């Protein structure tokens, strides 16, 4: 499963969710988490999915990442339905096309900052020396050039999230998914991480989707999808800051 090729001139959305439903459990234990989600994530944009806890944000990005399958509806990433791929091909699809930033960083405690950042390259079979060299260069650009050999426990929360950002960017994926990237950080660190994300990750051929309920960083968004009770209830356009009652689905 190779990276999805860039198609010059093509501006179709990187992510398109159409009528997506997701439930967990059966019978009395059945819980409806998503109830007909319509969502698009465009290339070259920083799209936020916001909403209260339990509204289905994390489930939605798990579906987009191919970590879960929808109960109904269709999730397309770069025109491919990830649910139609085999488990092995889903893994390979993520390896080549997706980068992740998590709320709790999820850095491996046993590895140094450079080794953590190099993980996607190592997974893809890039020789260790080359992977670490590239990780070092990227961490340098993200302001961690002097902490390459530091282990996660020796780094502050903001520094750990920057390492996680480097891990998400190192293999130049076309879609980056961030789950509450600033939730565990103070305001200054959160601003710093989001600023790096906006400058380093946003690219005409890359889409960035951020799940957050940290209102302090909403100003970084190009588009904000408001979720509630398993649905996208409104879209907010950049600059306007006026939530629109209509969903903003497909072009």
């Amino acid at each position, binding site marked *: 499963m190779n990276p999805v090729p860039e198609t010059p001139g093509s501006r179709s959305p990187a992510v398109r969710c159409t009528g997506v439903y997701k439930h967990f459990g059966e019978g009395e234990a059945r819980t409806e988490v998503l109830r007909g989600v319509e969502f698009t994530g465009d290339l070259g944009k920083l799209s936020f999915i916001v909403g209260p806890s339990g509204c289905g944000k*994390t489930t939605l*990005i*798990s579906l987009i*990442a191919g*970590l*879960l399958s929808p109960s109904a509806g269709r999730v397309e990433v770069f025109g491919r339905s990830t649910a139609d791929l085999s488990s*092995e091909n889903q*893994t*390979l699809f*993520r*390896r*080549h096309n*997706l980068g*992740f930033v*998590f*709320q709790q960083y*999820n850095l*491996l*405690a*046993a*590895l140094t900052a450079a*080794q953590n950042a190099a*993980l*996607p390259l*190592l*997974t*893809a079979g890039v020789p*260790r020396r080359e992977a670490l060299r590239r990780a070092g260069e990227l961490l340098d650009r993200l302001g961690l050039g002097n902490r390459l050999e530091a282990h996660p426990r020796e780094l502050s929360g903001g520094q750990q999230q920057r390492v996680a950002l480097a*891990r998400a960017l190192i293999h130049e994926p076309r879609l980056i998914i961030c*789950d509450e990237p600033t939730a565990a950080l103070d305001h200054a660190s959160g601003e710093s991480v989001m600023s790096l994300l906006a400058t380093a990750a946003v690219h005409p051929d890359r889409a960035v989707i951020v799940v957050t309920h940290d209102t302090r960083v909403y100003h970084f968004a190009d588009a904000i999808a408001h979720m509630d009770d398993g649905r996208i209830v409104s879209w907010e356009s950049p600059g306007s800051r006026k939530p629109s009652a209509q969903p903003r689905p497909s072009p």
Partner: protein
Amino acid sequence: MNWLGLLMLRHDRAKFGAMIVAVALAVFLMQNQAAILSSILLMTASQIRDVEEANLWVTEPDVECFDQAKPVRDIALHTVRGTPGVAWAMPLLKIDTLARTRGGKLSTVCLLGVEDSSLVGLPRRMRLGKAESVRERDTVLIDPGGFSLFFPGEPPSLGKTIQIHNRTLRVVGISDASPPFTGLPLLHTSRTTAAQLNVAEERSTTFILARSKPGEAPDEVCLRIAERTRLRARTTDGFARDAMWFYGSQGVPMLFMVTIAIGLVVGAAITGQTFLMFVKENARSLAMLKVVGTTHTQLGWMMAAQAGLILFLGSCIGSGLAAAVCELMRQQPFLRGLYLPVWVAVWTCLSLAIVTGGAVVLSFRQVQRLEPASVFR
């Protein structure tokens, strides 16, 4: 990717250490017991294998091992010599009798009388003195265990005396004979001297040692001897095998096997359980690796590398410990036959690797079932 797994393993020092210690102790226990068992079984045939000149042993039909001393008719020796395919045949007299020293030390001994002129049946290696010295009347060779028993604390020396049936025998050599299964002191002398000490039996031949002619199949010669003498003729290997089987079927090996099995089960259980805990505690990291595109095959190899390192280090430490303990025990004269055969070391390590490998496979199934979406929780 495998080095990444090793870094993760090394990072959790407590579990890494616990697993190595578990493997090391299991390997030590298994190898120690297996070494003792195999050494004991090999000792049951040590006097048979010590006689390198002969390749055929002729005994009474119901003799199962070397320690069952049931004399054959003396005339049988001539019949064996006359059997087609036999190059030569010599008598060996074995007597279990009581010996004592002037100092009052008393013990049952195994006395072997070899044919005076050929000396077939004497130990090949000597620690002190010359084996041929037993041609002189009333002289014996003694093994190191016997010397330490009769002359405790004294340095090995020649000229000391031992009394059997009021005859005084002079020690003219300390042999390096393999230790006997019975643990009795082993004395070698000439058949003439031995015959004078053989007060309980009229017959003076316990075993007939023979050699098949070059080009003759030893098994066929054995058949001919058995046909002509009505005695039992076996090759050295056959007699040694019979002896080991005879003692091996007495039940004692079962006790050792139980201990070995306990070592295997306990070692594998502790290692497997700790490995499973290690996997569970690293579930989030493993799920993250799956999210970023690590395949199950890659994770499987990572876990195999982790298990391989644990087994390698644990096996090295355990085997080293077992070999060192064997070496220490061998310093005791009567335990000089104890050693750790390479095949025992390899077999124990392999069996532990297989059982532990099963536990690792179970851990891997946990990883396979691990939900990658759990990293978002």
